[in-house]
């Protein structure tokens, strides 16, 4: 059980690298963007796991949890805004992909480079 205490972080590591693999190895631009969102999600997960306190409560006061232990609110704040920023930047990436598709007629990276070389 001692080692399993780090399971959340291992999941983070594997998830991060799954996203990274999609970004470096895949040729399709939309697939790369999906990989980027996986990468983002892994970072979100890391922050929230770090902020979690065993036996803690969500950091919202109610009438009857005045003196209980609370999880850390700060990572939650950072990630909350990052999720919305993440979808906006993903949309920007998708917009660029759509424009590339209009100009080059393809969204495969190697074909785009082929066209550029001509």
């Amino acid at each position, binding site marked *: 059980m001692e080692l399993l205490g780090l399971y959340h972080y291992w999941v983070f590591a594997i998830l991060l690298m799954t996203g990274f693999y999609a970004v470096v190895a895949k040729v399709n631009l939309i697939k790369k963007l999906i990989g980027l969102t996986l990468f983002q999600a892994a970072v979100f997960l890391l922050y929230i796991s770090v902020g979690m306190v065993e036996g803690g409560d969500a950091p919202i006061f*109610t009438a009857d949890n005045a003196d209980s232990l609370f999880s850390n609110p700060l990572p939650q704040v950072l990630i909350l805004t990052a999720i919305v920023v993440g979808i906006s930047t993903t949309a920007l990436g998708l917009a660029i992909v759509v424009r590339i598709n209009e100009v080059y007629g393809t969204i495969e990276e190697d074909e785009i480079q082929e066209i550029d070389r001509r």
Partner: protein
Amino acid sequence: MFYAVTIALLATMALALARAIMGPTVYDRVLAVNMIGTKTVLLMSVISFLFGRPDFLDLALVYALINFIGVLAVLEFFRVRAYDRSGDSEADGS
């Protein structure tokens, strides 16, 4: 005893996930997404009682309300694609 329901819901999610990954048609995958959406709503309701924080039912309510949008978007996507490709446009996974 909330645990029994939670375990049943988690097992069902795993089964639905298996269906989503196996396919074989895209419609099976959409069906699986929809199933997991419903399970998520139920799981969030049960867990918010498990935690003793019923005010977190808001989360389940959000999913109950807007999961539907994804399915409609898929339907619209199929409809648009049916115009684009007059032939058999059924995409298949794997």
